[in-house]
């Protein structure tokens, strides 16, 4: 009798969560991956995992928090997979696009090229800028323009509270390569923000 009750309870609860949290989960996944179809799949996978491990949810956290923690693992796994099964390898992306980028910013002696960095902008750049929707959009667009692996590497750096070494171990890349990717990604990101926001 108890089992039947539990089962009914579980079904009703999960159905309720699907109705209540699908929208925010989907928005989040879409925002992170910039891929609508993928975001839908990730949300569906999240609920599948939630059904499987429902017994581990003990009501200690909010359902929303619990579901988001599952979704974030799915998103991080997706970015990790990008490194393992690449259509273009991350080495090629780092060598080719990275070298072009470096050359456009620095001269042959490694000094900043004229006008590639200016000291008189970014003065008002702080956390509050994120409150301006137009700025948040520009930042997102600039993230989307990054090469695939750079985008994934940046997300992994911030998405999970893991050290650089741990991430490198998981991705099976050297720490040097990882921070070089982060370096190139940041250079391109700040250039994009320079052009589209700080001007």
């Amino acid at each position, binding site marked *: 009798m108890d089992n039947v009750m539990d*089962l009914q309870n*579980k*079904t009703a609860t*999960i*159905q309720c969560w*699907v*109705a209540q949290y*699908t*929208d*925010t989960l*989907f*928005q*989040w996944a879409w*925002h992170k991956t910039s891929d609508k179809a993928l975001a*839908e799949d990730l*949300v*569906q996978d999240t*609920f*599948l995992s939630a*059904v499987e491990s429902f017994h581990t949810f003990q009501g200690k956290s909010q359902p929303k928090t619990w579901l*988001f923690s599952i979704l974030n693992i799915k998103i991080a796994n997706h970015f990790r997979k990008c490194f393992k099964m690449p259509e273009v390898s991350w080495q090629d992306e780092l060598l080719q696009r990275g070298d072009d980028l*470096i050359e456009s*910013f*620095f001269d042959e*002696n*490694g*000094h*900043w090229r004229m006008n590639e*960095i*200016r*000291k008189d902008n*970014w003065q008002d*750049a*702080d*956390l509050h*800028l*994120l409150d301006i929707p137009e700025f948040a959009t520009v*930042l997102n667009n600039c993230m989307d323009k990054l090469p695939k692996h750079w985008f994934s590497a*940046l*997300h992994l*750096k*911030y*998405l999970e509270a893991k*050290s*650089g*070494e741990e991430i490198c171990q998981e991705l099976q890349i050297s*720490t040097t390569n*990882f*921070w*070089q990717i*982060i*370096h190139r990604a*940041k*250079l391109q*990101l*700040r250039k994009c*923000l320079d052009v589209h926001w700080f001007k």
Partner: protein
Amino acid sequence: MKQKVMRSLMVSCLKATELIEKKSLMPLSWTEKIKLKLHLSLCDLCVHYQHQSKVIDEWLQADETDTDNSTSDNTSLKERILKVLPLRE
């Protein structure tokens, strides 16, 4: 001798900006620390880069934790999910 040591510690802006990013991921060795410090004491542009890099870190970090986005309607997605979930009525 002194000049030789100094020259070996002088790094380019390219190298300095790399060290700035490396530092945000892992501890620098003591020579790397000296190289970066020396460079930043002489180069305003890289000091500015360091500021930009830190702000970008803050934005992306804040962005990863702010899950309260505006919502949209995803009725067909909800129906699809309910259909595939192994739930019994």
